[in-house]
């Protein structure tokens, strides 16, 4: 069976799935609006959490937090289930499809055959929608892909039961009821405040703008601490975290700028467009940092002390973001 499901490509899997599920339930919303309402933007440098043995650098909130915040604030009711084994997970999925309900799934990206092979690394917090089943294949709307895809049921089993950090354990979720016409501005105000607090007043040194500065100081020490080769691996990994893991470019800063632009007329606050422009500038600076980092890794920069230079670029980004979020906090 094949449910009616409009696929729309997005930058980021979780906000894309959330937006696509809502739209298909009759609630028009963009990915950027989901990302903003979900208080998605952040910065966290977590060296104690390893990804491929390298430190985790996040430009967004915790996995699952966007979906949770958006559905809760819109008073959308949801159901979420995890499973012990693939057989019962598959049975529950089929049952939802038979009832005509598109299903969100958390999966391990490594096991998705439709992904470009070169992008297949072990990462367990990927999200996609299953909207049908034909023979032994499921119909998939993966929001990071241009169009819908299919996956054999054995492959889907494996992706749903990927092992390791953040293992999905077959997690599936659906929307059970979606209210019409919520009063958005107060909800947006709350989400924007929450984001500003996380960026400006996080009690932890490795989160928010303080986190960017903390990271900058650590990074400047990499060549001494790790040696040139491993410093270069760490830096390359930093670029991937920022640009490659579905961030829409510039570590989600452009998506958030798009959100602020959309929120300005909705909330009747013209200044939000100005803050959106500041956020775009911050995103451009992050891109610039990534481009310079890649040159440093390739040994093609003519900088005298490249890591010190990169550090001062990050310090400037931190100042830029601090100014932007302070202004944002003031105007809501």
């Amino acid at each position, binding site marked *: 069976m094949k449910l009616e499901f409009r696929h729309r490509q997005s930058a980021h899997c979780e906000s894309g799935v959330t937006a696509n599920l809502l739209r298909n339930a009759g609630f028009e919303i963009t990915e950027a609006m989901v990302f903003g309402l979900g208080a998605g933007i952040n910065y966290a440098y977590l060296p104690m959490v390893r990804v491929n043995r390298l430190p985790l650098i996040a430009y967004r909130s915790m996995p699952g937090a966007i979906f949770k915040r958006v559905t809760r604030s819109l008073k959308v009711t949801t159901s979420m289930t995890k499973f012990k084994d693939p057989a019962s997970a598959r049975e529950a999925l089929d049952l939802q499809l038979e009832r005509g309900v598109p299903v969100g799934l958390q999966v391990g990206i490594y096991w998705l055959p439709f992904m470009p*092979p070169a*992008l297949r690394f072990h990462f367990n917090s990927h999200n996609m929608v299953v909207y049908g089943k034909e023979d032994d294949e499921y119909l998939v709307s993966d929001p990071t892909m241009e169009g819908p895809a299919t996956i054999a049921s054995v492959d889907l089993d494996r992706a749903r039961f990927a092992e390791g950090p953040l293992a999905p354990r077959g997690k599936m979720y659906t929307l059970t009821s979606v209210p019409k016409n919520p009063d958005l501005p107060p909800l947006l105000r709350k989400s924007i405040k929450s984001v500003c607090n996380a960026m400006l007043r996080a009690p932890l040194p490795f989160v928010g703008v303080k986190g960017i500065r903390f990271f900058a100081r650590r990074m400047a020490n990499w060549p001494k601490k790790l040696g040139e080769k491993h410093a270069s691996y760490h830096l390359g990994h930093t670029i*991937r975290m920022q640009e490659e893991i579905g961030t829409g470019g*510039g570590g989600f800063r*452009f*998506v958030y*700028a798009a959100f602020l632009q959309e929120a300005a007329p909705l909330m009747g606050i013209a200044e939000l467009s100005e803050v959106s422009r500041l956020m775009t500038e911050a995103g451009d600076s992050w891109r610039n940092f990534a481009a310079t980092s*890649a040159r440093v890794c*390739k040994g093609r920069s003519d900088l005298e002390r490249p890591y010190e230079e990169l550090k001062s670029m990050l310090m400037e980004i931190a100042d830029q973001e601090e100014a932007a979020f302070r202004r944002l906090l003031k105007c809501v």
Partner: protein
Amino acid sequence: MKKEQVPQHKDMFGEQRAACYAVDDGGNYVIAPTAGWEPSNFANRQAWEVIREEVELTLENIHAGKASPLALHMVMNQLDPGLLSSYTGIGRFKVRSHLKVRGFVKMSSDDAKKYADFFKIPVEVLAIVPDKVELPGETRD
């Protein structure tokens, strides 16, 4: 980023394009497709280089009798003994012994089948060490 500046450096996505956020001439945000961007393409290639290094090291160890062919399948799939154990349901201690030649030759046919099923290869192939290993991140169009 301006819409016309959205990079189209085709490398690793194949024919796929990813969504990038950029502003058009009127200053409005749009979602623009990107075929890739050289700095992040570089970072992806580098991540595959790390895997390549590990594959080469493992091949050396196998030829020197310090590791079993299972070790090659493990690193080719970017796994470690812990993950291999959770995926196959074979105990950690046992997996570690199978990664050595001595443990590998004593492997039960049940365990061999579990590994082979997991790697989607015939059981006989489990013991074969190829001369050259190709990794998905190294094929370009």
